[in-house]
């Protein structure tokens, strides 16, 4: 990794970079700049755009509904990250330790990840539907009143479970691979020293695979904020009473159902900055705690 200067010829490097640059410009950077510009307008389809300065941002700052959406998103993303990683770590460790049928377990765990998000959302909807769900009657037999179309906290939990279920497979792929790279000698040493299984996982393996874990924290954060959209859209539509109205869904609704594109752009800019800051913080933390081997 030390030889940085692969290309001495700048022109050659530029030509090779060009396709990526063009695609990024057209599909990422230009729209981003446009969205920032649009956030200063009152823009709705076919009714003309009016420059309104910071009005959209002022409206955001004064909206208790939006504030609630921010809090719900942060809570949701935090629960997703913690939930996914805790479950995935346990499963990965079990798969790592077992000697028979590793592949079968791995495939079983990765399966939900292989589903397209929209399909996963629909599947989960019909598994847990309060009236016609496949598992609903069994869960109700345990004494739980399944009522998440009306009950906010229950809806939050159901969408959270769906989101975790979907993302665990992705994490397990990375974690089992990272665990597979832990030197056998370390395991042997730990066993000789009489370190218990749990201690071995938490004190030996986790620090060693910390770069992978940092990577996963970040990917899961993005997932929690952005990619859980289909589940919310298909299962709760942000409801009931805004209980699952995460920012990305709120943004979609403002733009593509209410056609308030200026206001939606302001929301997207705020979301972009917020998640950007969050990640910056995560990198600073990871610099302190992750072990990159160098």
């Amino acid at each position, binding site marked *: 990794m030390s030889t940085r200067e692969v290309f001495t010829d700048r022109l050659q490097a530029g030509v090779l970079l060009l396709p990526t640059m063009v695609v990024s410009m057209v599909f990422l950077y230009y729209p*981003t700049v446009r969205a920032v510009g649009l956030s200063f307008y009152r823009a709705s389809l076919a009714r003309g755009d009016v420059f309104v300065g910071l009005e959209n941002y002022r409206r955001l700052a004064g909206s208790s509904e939006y504030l609630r959406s921010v809090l719900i998103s942060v809570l949701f993303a935090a629960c997703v990250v913690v939930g996914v990683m805790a479950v995935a770590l346990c499963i990965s460790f079990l798969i790592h330790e077992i000697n028979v049928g590793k592949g079968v377990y791995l495939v079983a765990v990765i399966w939900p990840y292989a589903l397209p998000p929209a399909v996963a959302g629909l599947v989960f909807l019909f598994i847990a539907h309060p009236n016609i769900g496949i598992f609903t009657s069994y869960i109700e037999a345990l004494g739980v009143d399944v009522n998440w179309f009306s009950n906010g906290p229950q809806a939050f939990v159901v969408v959270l479970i769906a989101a975790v279920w979907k993302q665990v497979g992705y994490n397990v792929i990375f974690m089992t691979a990272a665990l597979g790279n832990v030197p056998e000698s370390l395991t042997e040493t730990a066993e000789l020293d009489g370190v218990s299984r749990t201690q071995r996982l938490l004190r030996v393996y986790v620090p060693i695979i910390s770069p992978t874990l940092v990577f996963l924290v970040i*990917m899961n954060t993005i997932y929690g904020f952005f990619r859980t959209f289909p589940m919310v859209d298909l299962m709760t539509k942000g409801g009931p009473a805004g209980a699952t109205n995460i920012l990305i869904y709120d943004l979609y609704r403002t733009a593509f159902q209410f056609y308030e594109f200026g206001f939606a752009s302001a929301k997207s800019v705020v979301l*972009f900055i917020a998640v*950007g800051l969050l990640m910056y913080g995560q990198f600073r933390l990871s610099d302190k705690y992750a072990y990159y081997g160098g």
Partner: protein
Amino acid sequence: MVHSGGGYDHVSRRSVLKASGTALTVGTVGLAGCSSSSGASVRPVDEDSLTIWHAMGGTNGETLQGLVDQFQSETGIKANLVFQDSYEGVLTNTLSALDSGEVPDVFQIDSLFAQQVLDTDAVEPVENLLSDDYPVDDFLPNVTSFFTIDDTLTSMPFNNSNAILYYNRSAFEEAGLDPDSPPTTLEEVRSYSQTLVDEGVTDAGITWPNHVWFVEHFYSVDGQTLLDAENGHAGQPTTMQTDTETARSLYEWWHEMADNGLFSNPGIEAWGEATSTFLTEKAAMLMTSTASVTGIRSGAEENGFEVDNAFYPTIDGDRTGPVIGGASWFVPSGLPQDRQDDIGSFLEFMGRPESQITWHKGTGYYPIRQSAVEQLETDGWFSENPMYRTAFDQLTQAENTPATKRMLIGPARQVQTTIQDKSVELFSGEVGVDEGLSELKSAVEEQLNRYYS
């Protein structure tokens, strides 16, 4: 958006940065390009053929295609149906099209979004496209009254329906209720539901999708407008009428029904789920569109029970009438004259009695021409299909008042969402009725005020 980083055998700090940076940016794109300045000249999507955007899926779509095929062979005018998945899909694409100037010739707009389309000032009143001797007064007045604004027929009504009460006769009998006297008021719906649940016949008494249309129906049946300014037909409305006995009775009842497990909540805009709940006999009553008669009848047969329907329940016994739902055909303005003539032929064809009879029989939507209704009557259609008779009687027996004209507002989707979301809070008891209604009122006022300011 998934990046595998630098491969999992060696995850470097740089690969982590790279992957997350790309993923993050995606959040903001997708919005740009949604807005542009218009003013360009209007031209059709396809020069060689009429382009019709619609939202009729499944068998309804097939019936529509059949009509269009017939139109093409009779007139020699080419017409191309383009399915846009949903009313929202048609609306979004239409607004973008009107914005860009490259437009479909005809588009099917849900009555809820009519004002939003009119506010673009880019549509031609269909009355201008119909020939002078076209018998506009043969349309059912309860239907055309909604689509007529300032004495001009702005769009061509096509697929229209009301909401009605369906009930499971077999379940009623099992619970010892008289299947020939279905409930007519909220109180009766409650007591019937209680009996059905107490007798262990069904899990819940009644279900219906949480859609603003049903709230609109409760208001109109009770003779009340939902919004001021005659639901938006007499100017720009500013508020929702929530300080009324109608609103309080409705939401108190709804909350009690939910609280006692008599109302099964299928979810927001969950048409399909509500119907399944009824057809799988988890609830013995269902409120949904009159256009569902055929589907519900065959569904009930499959599930081995006898189904019937009755008028939409009233708040307290007084009945004004239902509001119209469904959609109409809109036409963009600024197309050349010969093009407009072809479009006029298309609209006239879709509205003629023969087409309306085909359409009604194929889909369950109302035939909207009086002569079509008379023809069906002579053919004995209504006596063979008593459920259509009930649906139709509900429409024709209605008074024609401002209350029975559905809300006509620009920010319809916002107000709709607000009412639906707030309804959940109200019936689930998350807020009290008085507090919830006043919150609902101010939220609707804010939406209206923002749009019209």
